Structure formats: structure tokens, C-alpha cells
């Protein structure tokens, strides 16, 4: 275990698009981060899935680096952060919001919302995110809590506000 009291800063900043796709065969949803100048909209087959473009938002990816010990925590497995507004009594994240009385519970969304691969945002990444967003707060400030999306009872029904630039490319 590290002896360092980490002091995190953002590194390896990548701007791009969060692209959402749907499978026309099974109705499944998937997302990925693209660094292309314009979001890719091609349809393609992947195993039993036939992925079709649904929408995209401008978004960023970044890693965290400790200025004290130089450790870098990669966050490539996180596609976005979402402010939880979930009230589902079966959801552990909603229960966390209730028990803390907090409006500052965020869900780190990974690419595979089904979690069939058994992977989600890494524990090291979640730990570093929690430390980063709380490291400059006053003792009287309420804490930010970041949890992996595998804690949600179902990411398809979990309510929240995804931190992405919704609507920026729309005309209105």
C-alpha cells in the first residue's frame, strides 16, 4: 500500500465524443469514446449485435497523476460521470444518497452497462477520483462521493444527469 498522501492533478486530457449505440437485433445499448474529429456513425456487426448510431455528445477523458509520488491512475475505463438522482429503493446508489442526505453522489459510467464482462471502472480509479474531487474542500463542505456504475441496480433504469455537452451541436 502506498505511503503517499496523494495530491492529484489531471493529466492526459483527451477531448472527443461520447457515442451511444443501440443494437437493432436485441435492443441492447452500448457507448464508446471517440477521438475522431467528428463522431463515427457507421453501422457494424459485433458478434450477435448489430450496432447502430443513436447520438453523441462532446465529452472528455483524463487520467489522474499524483504530484508527490508521480503515480498515474488511468481512467480509460470510465466513459462519463453522472450525478445520481436515483430514488429506486432497490438501488444501492439511491440508498447511499438517502443515507448521506447528499446531493453529491456521482456514478462513474463504464462502457459495458451490462457488466457481462465482469469489468467496470477500476477500484484504483474510483479511489483516485474520490480523493481528487475532495482534496481542496474545506472541512465544512459536503464530500463528493464517486461510485462505479456496477453499484447501480440497473444502469438502464437508474436516474441521473450525465456530465456531457448535451445539445451543443443542435440548432435552436
Amino acid at each position, binding site marked *: 500500500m502506498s505511503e503517499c498522501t496523494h495530491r492529484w492533478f489531471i493529466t492526459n486530457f483527451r477531448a472527443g465524443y461520447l457515442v451511444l449505440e443501440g443494437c437493432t437485433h436485441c435492443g441492447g445499448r452500448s457507448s464508446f469514446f471517440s477521438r475522431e474529429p467528428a463522431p463515427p456513425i457507421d453501422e457494424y456487426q459485433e458478434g450477435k449485435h448489430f450496432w447502430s448510431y443513436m447520438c453523441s455528445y462532446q465529452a472528455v477523458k483524463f487520467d489522474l497523476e499524483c504530484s508527490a509520488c508521480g503515480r498515474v491512475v488511468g481512467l480509460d475505463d470510465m466513459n462519463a460521470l453522472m450525478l445520481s438522482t436515483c430514488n429506486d429503493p432497490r438501488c444501492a446508489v439511491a440508498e447511499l444518497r438517502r443515507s448521506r442526505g447528499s446531493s453529491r453522489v456521482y456514478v462513474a459510467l463504464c462502457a459495458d452497462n451490462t457488466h457481462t464482462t465482469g469489468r467496470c471502472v477500476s477500484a484504483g480509479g474510483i479511489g483516485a477520483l474520490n480523493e481528487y474531487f475532495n482534496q*481542496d474542500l474545506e472541512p465544512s463542505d459536503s464530500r463528493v462521493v464517486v461510485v462505479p456504475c456496477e453499484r447501480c441496480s440497473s444502469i438502464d433504469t437508474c436516474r441521473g*444527469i450525465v456530465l456531457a455537452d448535451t445539445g451543443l451541436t443542435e440548432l435552436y
Partner: protein
Amino acid sequence: MKVSELAERTGLKGINSVAEKEVERVYISDMVSDIITGPKPRSVLITLQTHKSLIAAANLVSVPMIVVVKGRLPSDDVVELATSAGIALFSTDLDAWSFAKRLVELGF
């Protein structure tokens, strides 16, 4: 400087009412993806955006005060979200640059 003092000295119009907080610095942005990685805690955020996701991003990085420029007003659900997060919302008819100059004159 306290949020209420800054608002009074710059002629801001209050949109909601939350507990008093301190602000120490300024950040200007209209992009949620930028706000996640930009402002330090206790920053005043100057923006043209009134979308809900802006409040969610400001809440994450501990922004206590948002000034919406060019007379825009957020919808009721956005105001409600900001209030529940303890973020003070204000409006000004000035553009971002003109309002930022006022903050510079105040010593920010």
C-alpha cells in the same frame, strides 16, 4: 469575498436563495466537459449555458456561485437542482467579458 457581497457590488439579479458561501476565483466556460476539469473549489462560474448538466458539473467541482450572462434565465427544474446543491444562481444582462472586467476591478 462572500457571494452576497459580490452580487451586490456587481449589480447581479438573484435567481435562487441558498446558504452564504465564499468565492475566491473566477472561471468562464460554457462547456460541461470543460467545467469538470477546470474550476477549483470556491470559483465563480460565468456562463451562457442554462442546461441541467452544467449544474451537475459545477456541483462536482464545488462551484458555489454561477452567473448566467446576457440576460438568460434557467428553467425551474435547473433552478431547483442548483438550490438543492447549494449553488447560488445569478443573472446579468452583461456579456461574459464585460462581467469578468467588473470582477477584475473588484480584485479577482
